[in-house]
């Protein structure tokens, strides 16, 4: 399979309580070559202004083990900074994989964006 590059589009939405939520929308494949994009984008966020982070995987085609390791690193760094993370948009296959590798210790997996946003309240 031809590997597609990774893009991360950043956005901000308001939760139902009016608190800002930083959304990282991943697009393409997440593999070992995505480190600069994935971790670079996260490290560019200010912990003060980005207390709530929503990860959107609905446009992700494929994640391999190196890509999953990057997501774990992101989650672990966020948990150390006290940032809350919610996740949505994963296929059932990758929901199972995320559960298997213990990511659910750092985030909950939601079926859609509305449910994920609501989980911050």
């Amino acid at each position, binding site marked *: 399979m031809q590997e597609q590059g990774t893009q991360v589009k950043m956005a901000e939405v308001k939760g139902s309580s009016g608190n800002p939520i930083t959304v990282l929308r991943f697009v393409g494949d997440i593999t*070992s070559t995505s480190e600069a994009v994935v971790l670079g984008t996260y490290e560019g966020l200010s912990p003060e202004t980005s207390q709530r982070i929503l990860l959107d995987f609905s446009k992700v085609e494929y994640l391999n*083990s*190196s890509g999953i*390791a990057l997501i774990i690193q992101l989650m672990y760094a966020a948990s150390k900074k006290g940032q809350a993370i919610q996740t949505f948009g994963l296929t059932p296959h990758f929901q199972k994989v995320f559960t298997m*590798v213990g990511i*659910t210790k750092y985030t909950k997996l939601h079926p859609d964006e509305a449910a994920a946003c609501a989980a911050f309240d």
Partner: protein
Amino acid sequence: MRRFRFSLLLLSLFALHVFAQSKPTPSATKPAVQVTLGQSIVALNGPWKFHIGDNPAWADPDFDDSQWETVDLTPQAGSFDPYDGSSGYVPGWTAKGHPGYWGWAWYRIRVQTAARPGEKLALAGPSDVDDAYQVFANGKLLGSFGKFRGQGLRPVVYETEPMMFFLPQAGTSGGDSTEPTTQLLAFRVWMEPNTLTFVPDAGGIHFTPLLGEDSMVAARNQLAWFELVRAWASVAIVAALFFLLAVLACSLVLFDRSDPVYLWLAAVFLLTALYSAMLCLTAWTQLAESAWNLTLAVFLNPLTLGGWVMVWWVWFRLRSPAWMPKAIAGLTLLYMLSEALGENFFVTAISHPVSATFHLASLGIRLLFLLLLVLIVIRGIRQQGREGWLALPAVVLMGISQFQNELEILRVRVVWFPFGTQASLELIASVALAAAIFVLLLRRLLLSLRQQREMALDVKQAQEVQQVLIPAERPQVPGLTIESEYRPAREVGGDFFQIIPHATDGSVLIVVGDVTGKGLQAGMLVALIVGAIRTAADTSFDPLYVLQTLNKRLCGRGHAHATCLALRIAADGAVTLANAGHLPPYLNGKELAMEGALPLGMIEQAEFSLMRFQLAPGDTLMLMSDGIAEAQDEQGQLFGFERIHAMLRQPITAAEVATAAQNFGQQDDILALRVERVTS
């Protein structure tokens, strides 16, 4: 006024059949070789009357030109055109008392002609003129070379091409007269100011016009065309050669995107091809005026020179000073500017002293470029030795060729004409550079092939090491049947497993895992992990201890992560299972429900999931790597967990599981390990 007597000159010799047209003489009655004096052509060497300036009245045959200068267009023996090599070159007016003059000038000559009955006379225009001309006969315009756009406007000029003009019928209207008649032929010539900067002895007519019978002039004209084509053929070949080299360099970019030198090479080859093609186009056609050449030279030459400096900078992988590429870009822009102003592009806006100053600046910048080139190559020699020495002669030649025009003005020979075709210093330098680059690329290719062979050997050796580490034959464990199937995606795999029977208590430790990544890097990590498993097993068979030991080994090693499953099966079938993010085993076709846990190497304080269960006789455990669930077909569809569940509902071997995933579309290493408890 001296009269020019037109006479019949050409002799045609017939070996066997000739017809004598001369009147018979007494001697003609005796046997003799018969010759025909017939078609003829003569060079109008002069003397011509010459005057700078412009006045339409100077075309008039009755105008008194007795006060004008007299010039002789007879070429010196051995003289030749510095550009196309044609013999018979005559210096222009700047070498005959009018240095630095550009603009209009007139040449006049009176000739007495006598055409044979039924034949017409024609004039072959000079085959090299600075830069455009009109020709008049007895005050009547015969034609022109260049585009004359009316009084007060500068004509559009082209590179001189052979031209032919028919003279009005001499003598009586019937045209059968052989009586001599006198005609006033006048050339009105225009020279562009910038011609002064690149043509030695510039100014007006450089080849004598030819007068003769029309058929002969037409034949001479055709010959002149052949000579013109031949003279520039080498340049056309170079244009084609460099275009092909540009295509080759572009294809090398596709093969190796990491090295920018191929991109620079493609750019300079393309620029050279473009410039050479343009030279041919302007020499052979009137599709492009001479000014285009000049404009192209002003932009393309600096870009090509700057490009070559960058080629060698990148070729020798020089890094310091870091500002060098910017300095080269700046120098290239300055070179363009000084060329544009120094070549008198803005004739009416810039005075001659100012343009001369910019020309000097251009000279200085080219010297600076030459210095830079030599310095870069010398540093290349220090770094890479042989490659630098191979490049040096071609680079020095190219640097010197940047001064071709100046050397020409100083009458240093920089153009040669082997077999009648042009070989300028610039052309020779370009070909020498192409040859040097070709040799260097060939050398690089051979070195690359050798490196690839060495790398293939390294991979082969790593594969052999892995075969030693990953057991090809399963150890015999009493009470258990163990089968495994390992199919790496590349030569060296990233999945691993170990089966270590206890020396005394009849238990066995089985460890299955998958490191992140593939290939040699993953294989090296596997080697590290297998070593650590063996060391840990010497101390304890506790699966949790084994995972914690491995985690300590991997933490802080950058991208060293792995999912891992360790289980100890006691002699009585009691199983202790620890998991670090790996796919849980399937017990009798059903996935064991385990809590998720982080893979190894992520954080030091990681907690791994643990469970215990009993393996009864006949029970089977299937352990797999993620390469099975993540096999993908051509549409990108995953093999997935559902297919695994469906497969394992029936009895199946490890090899069958691996084959099913591989046939679906292997993307990653595939490992399947099946354990069955049998009654001992």
